[in-house]
């Protein structure tokens, strides 16, 4: 049989500390987004829609809910022919038993998984970004120039550039220099944390990195620097579209609200768009909107019962907004109940809660409030 073209390795081991209570008992990848989805639905759907059928999901932190959710990958169709969906958690080995020490170490420890598949290329990506992308185009760009590695990049504002890995490239998009979170960015081309490697290139780099005691075992910095030093051909693949890192409460809120505000964002409502985002089906009734309900400028998922007022908000499945309740500029996560005559403003309310008291964060300077207990 021909050698497999490409397999995907998704890094979902992170804790996501900046999502606070939302990730206290849940991996960041399984956090809710967009009224219906989990963050990881975007990456896994992208992989499936790109025609890539073999996925390894690297997990570590509080992974039970995530593992339950992804199961055998059926939601995104990874249970078809010539497909596989493998959960890769830290394991005991004959001569070691280590947690993953960083992104590069996580991949290094799973080299045997890659060896079994023996692909020509490996796609490595994180699981906590919201975007739609066809990775096969990125692969083609890499193959066309017979490159060793491709890094997907997005243009950011100069002042934002200090937060990212910044790429300096020549006129052919070939990488000249890479700087992680530079104080004085030399360009505005930021790494999106999406990489495609020639398998042999990746293998070499990881083995070398593992032996390097001074390395932080981070993909972004350590691996790329090493490959640059070895004169490997690294290209940047420019991405043009919506892409958001939702690793903080504020960015999670903003991104959800951006979706509420812009119907064309992510083309979710484009019925001809075959690049669908797949998610778990919750077998709910369609959303019921009551006699006195008011819903404006909002997104409301099925299974919800809206008897009160909802303005400029994101309502997840199974949520009950009782009569007289008012929800404004907020995100209400699944199965939460907002009791009668309660007002919720400017908040992210976590799931399975009952809110009996007003949540009114008028002070915008304080940022959006996160409610993660009954209130």
């Amino acid at each position, binding site marked *: 049989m021909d050698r497999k073209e490409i397999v995907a390795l998704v890094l979902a081991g992170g804790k996501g500390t900046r999502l606070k209570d939302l990730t206290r008992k849940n991996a960041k990848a399984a956090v809710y987004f*967009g*009224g*219906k989805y989990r963050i990881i639905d975007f990456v896994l759907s992208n992989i499936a829609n790109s025609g890539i059928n073999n996925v390894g999901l690297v997990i570590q932190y509080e992974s039970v809910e995530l593992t339950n959710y992804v199961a055998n990958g059926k939601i995104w169709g990874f249970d078809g022919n010539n497909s596989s969906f493998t959960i890769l958690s830290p394991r005991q080995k004959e001569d070691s038993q280590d947690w993953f020490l960083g992104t590069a170490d996580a991949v290094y420890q799973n080299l045997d998984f890659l060896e079994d598949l023996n692909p020509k290329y490996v796609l490595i990506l994180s699981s906590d970004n919201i975007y739609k992308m066809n990775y096969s185009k990125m692969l083609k760009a890499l193959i066309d120039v017979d490159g060793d590695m491709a890094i997907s990049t997005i243009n950011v504002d100069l002042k934002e550039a200090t937060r990212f890995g910044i790429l300096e490239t020549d006129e052919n998009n070939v990488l000249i220099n890479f700087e992680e979170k530079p104080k004085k960015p030399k360009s505005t081309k930021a790494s999106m944390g999406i990489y495609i490697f020639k398998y042999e290139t990746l293998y070499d780099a990881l083995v070398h990195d593992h032996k390097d005691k001074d390395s932080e075992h981070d993909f972004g910095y350590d691996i790329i620097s090493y490959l640059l030093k070895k004169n490997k051909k690294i290209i940047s693949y420019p991405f043009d579209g919506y892409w958001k890192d939702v690793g903080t409460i504020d960015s999670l809120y903003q991104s959800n609200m951006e979706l509420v505000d812009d*119907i064309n964002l992510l083309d*979710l*409502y484009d*019925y001809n768009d075959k690049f*669908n*985002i*797949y*998610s778990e*089906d919750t*077998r709910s*009734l*369609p*959303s*019921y*909107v*009551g*006699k*006195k*309900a*008011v*819903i*404006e*400028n*909002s*997104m*409301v*998922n*099925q299974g919800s*019962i809206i008897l009160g007022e*909802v303005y400029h908000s*994101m*309502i*997840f499945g199974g949520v009950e907004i009782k009569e007289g309740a008012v929800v404004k500029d907020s995100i209400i996560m699944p199965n939460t109940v907002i009791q009668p005559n309660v007002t919720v403003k400017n908040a992210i309310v976590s799931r399975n809660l009952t809110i009996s008291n007003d949540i009114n964060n008028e002070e915008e300077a304080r940022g959006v409030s996160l409610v993660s207990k009954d209130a």
Partner: protein
Amino acid sequence: MPRVLGIVNLHGYCELEEVTSRSIGATPLLGRYSIIDLALSNYSNSGISNCAVLVGKHLRALARHLNNSNVYTDNPKLGSTTLLYNEEFHDQEIYNTDLNNLIENKFIFEEDNFKYVIITPCKYLFRLNFNELLHQHEKRGSKITLVYKKINNADKEFIDAYTVDVDQRTTNKKIRAISVNNGDKKTNNIYLETLIINRDVLERIMSHADKYGHVFNLTEVIANHLDELEADSFYYEGYLKRISDLKEYLSASIDLLNIENLYELTNRSWPIYTKTHNTPPARYLEDADVSNSFISNGSIIEGKVINSIICRNVIIKKGAVIKNSIVFSDTTIHEGVILENAIIDKHVDVQIKKEIIGTKERPVYIKKGDKI
């Protein structure tokens, strides 16, 4: 639990099917389901995971809905939903009976060792844990048990429905006769066309069908042999609605907008299972004005929707007013259009025709794909 084959019987004349050219089983219910989901979910929630669907006609939409994956079972290796179709006689009305379909497809009896067969139609909306029916049937040692409900508005509803005359004097309330409701009295026993029958009894009926010339349906045969079959009765007390034509389809749908009625049919412990279409949450724009309605995912609402059911991916534009209506999936209702007592099928564009107004008695139906 003994093995039971759960059959959904789609045979029998149904005016709604004639109008929409679609099987009643594949007709949308509450926006996101198909009516057959209710029957199959009753089976699934009752622990019956081997099902067969007797298809009379209009196979296409039904096959599309049921193919690909079995969402009605706890274990897809153990559960199954088989479509049974009478290929030889599907286009000859007189021979296209449920009984003939069973005879044509009797392989299903050879491939499994179930002890009982339960048969239920789609035209009745009800919720029944079939274990209760099974339990009574077994306890009494019955051969066949028919399910009925006593109603008090038989002069207005369920006209022409099969009824049963139950002998209340005996301990086992035997069925004395099966007839038809002609609306002449207020109280009547509506036969839900739902029954449980011992496998060997059903097989005997099937093998003797030659005597009947293959032109009688199962209910007619049972009606003619009630004594011999010692037909028993099971009293159903729950919610019941019939969907036989546009009027009943619309009125039953609107009746279910009342959440108390809805919970009679389904709730968290008795869910309705259906195929997922991966549609995004419904979107309400600035001018959306929705009241007492079901809104399915993927829809974009900018107009006014009252007492209605909106299926998936429907676009209701600003200034449109939808009242007491059902809009099937992928349809767009453009600016300023008024719908009242209307049923709009899929992939329709209502734009130029600004008013589509029917009555409760005679709802207006716009067929699939029309651009008006």
